């Protein structure tokens, strides 16, 4: 169905595009017409993509969960009742109740902890992605556009950061901090994560800067900042956005990994990674303590990767 819709629209444009304004085209174009850029085309495609719709709904729920956990549960994730609830089994019929997913080794409601744990994971993912995109795009754009010595210098610095194993590097950075708040974790991940974006941005800028419209802007006497911001950035950003959305899911996983290893967030912080870390000790007698937060991580990572995939397909003109 979307195919036929699109076809009729292109023919409409096609007929209006006969050289020379005729009376008919004049009349047609006096109506306010909707401009269709790459982004509006992409949005048009995305709305009809079930993968996108599903992931968008999931992400919306997760973001609301992170922002307003009280909407989902009234229970306190830090309230421990060892006497009554030590490793109490989940009660699957009590949907959205405190004991839905059972209780952990401290007698705390797993349901409440899973809901409240979303905040740290989502916060880490969004802030790290934003930081990484800004740092990576700026570095890649400067390296790609100016070339020469600046490019060599920035590219080698990127290579050095790229060579550091991500988890190992993050461990080294994190252990150097006394107190590990969520912002320290964000800093550590962003510090090491910008290299991929920088490479993608550099490659994209290298092709865009050859374009005739960049030449034309130079010939008009446009300043470097105008060329970079008005001509190169809007045309080079699409692949960066795709990589950023896909890696968003990865940062949730990384935060969980670091917390699991005991060097990310730590008790009393509520986070999926912290819960997975403490749950693994009870794997034999109470597997649900480990499995439930793990499933949350998987669903969230999957939702973001699905979103990234859908965005990539929508922005890739070759798949049209």
């Amino acid at each position, binding site marked *: 169905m979307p195919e036929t819709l699109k076809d009729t629209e292109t023919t409409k444009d096609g007929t209006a595009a006969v050289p020379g304004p005729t009376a008919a085209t004049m009349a047609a*174009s006096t109506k306010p017409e909707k401009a269709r850029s790459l982004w509006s085309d992409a949005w048009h495609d995305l709305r009809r993509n079930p993968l996108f719709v599903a992931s968008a709904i999931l992400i919306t729920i997760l973001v609301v969960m992170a922002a307003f956990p009280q909407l989902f549960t009234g229970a306190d994730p830090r309230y421990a009742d060892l006497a009554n609830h030590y490793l109490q089994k989940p009660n699957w019929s009590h949907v959205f109740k405190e004991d839905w997913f059972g209780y952990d080794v401290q007698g705390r409601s797993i349901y409440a902890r899973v809901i409240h744990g979303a905040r740290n994971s989502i916060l880490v993912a969004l802030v790290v992605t934003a930081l990484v995109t800004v740092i990576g795009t700026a570095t890649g754009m400067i390296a790609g556009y100016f070339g020469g010595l600046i490019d060599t210098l920035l590219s080698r610095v990127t290579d050095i950061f790229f060579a550091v194993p991500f988890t190992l590097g993050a461990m080294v950075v994190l252990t150097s901090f006394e107190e590990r708040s969520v912002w320290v974790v964000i800093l550590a991940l962003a510090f090491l994560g910008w290299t991929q974006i920088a490479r993608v941005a550099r490659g994209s800028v290298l092709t865009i800067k050859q374009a005739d419209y960049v030449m034309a802007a130079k010939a*008009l006497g446009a300043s470097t900042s105008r060329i970079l911001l008005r001509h190169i950035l809007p045309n080079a950003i699409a692949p960066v956005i795709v990589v950023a959305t896909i890696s968003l899911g990865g940062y949730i996983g990384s935060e969980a990994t670091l917390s699991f290893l005991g060097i990310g967030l730590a008790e009393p912080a509520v986070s999926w990674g912290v819960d997975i870390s403490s749950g693994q000790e009870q794997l034999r007698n109470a597997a649900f303590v480990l499995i439930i937060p793990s499933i949350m991580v998987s669903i969230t990572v999957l939702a973001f990767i699905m979103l990234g995939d859908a965005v990539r397909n929508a922005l890739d003109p070759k798949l049209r």
Partner: protein
Amino acid sequence: MAEPRKSGEAVDATPNVTEVDVVDAGSESASVAAIEAPVERGEPILQVRNLVKHFPLTQGILFKRQVGAVKAVDGISFDLYQGETLGIVGESGCGKSTVAKLLMMLETATAGEVFFKGQDITKLSGRALKAVRRNIQMVFQDPYTSLNPRMTVGDIIGETFDIHPDSAPKGERRRKVQELLDVVGLNPEYINRYPHQFSGGQRQRIGIARGLALNPEIIICDEPVSALDVSVQAQVINLMEKLQDEFNLSYIFIAHDLSIVRHISDRVGVMYLGKMAEIGTDTQIYDHPTHPYTQALLSAVPVPDPDAREGRERIILSGDVPSPANPPSGCRFRTRCWKAQDRCATDVPLLAIPERFKGSDSQAAHESACHFAEEKDVVHAA
């Protein structure tokens, strides 16, 4: 493979419209010459002197050392007068587009000068260069890549006013853009459309409108119609001629299509391997070529009349164009020239009126860089 035909492009892309002109010009060459003779020859508006562009060839990763240079443009001189069109023709890779980029200051010249109204613009930078750019603008070859796909037509043309804020007051800009669209024959209502909503010819009109926005005196057209199909080529060429009369523009018209160049140009320069082989008025070049390369090039122009085609002589050159990184000594054309003698390998022929034609009234008395320049009318030979 055995005989790579010269100037294959000229053969592919000759529009019907202008082919007719080539044939007509034969019978009425005298009157055509009178009409198309360059207008007032006052001070040249643009003087190019020994312009050189060498692209270095480097080797090594960390410590780059220069192992040679691609001599894309190797000493070119010509003048451009107010209101005239200078055509520059030559096959692919002969340095035509590099000349355009050098004149636009998009590449820095290795040596040589470009004087705009007496001022050497190759040494300018910053504000002074920006001021000169207002007077020299460019129309690009490919209308599909020369317009930013993320900007509306209004933004693309209006950007010139943002870059040069004193050229139009803020409130006037939108109206000026619409005027420009009207001038190039587009509906002013299209101002909010994106480039992909236009056909190739319409896009090229947008490119021309952008070039006109600052009221330049010179427009450099780098193959402005070669990406368009034949019927649209004629429309765009006619538009450019109309605009030239209206705004008294000077064009440097770069193309590989000989017929189109003849149609629009007052004077024509023929380039071969980074050097100018021959330069003169269009009648001098097309009807009285004296350089063997020009003669070979012209003999490849398709002739629509089958009878004329039967009788005419085809000059078929052997071999390929030598690499500009290692051009032949002496005359650049000697490796493929049927007139070449020992002298051609040692003495570089200068671009000047050949000795034997000096002082003669003949049309053959124009600048030609050949030791053995000799008139030969290839187009009309029967």
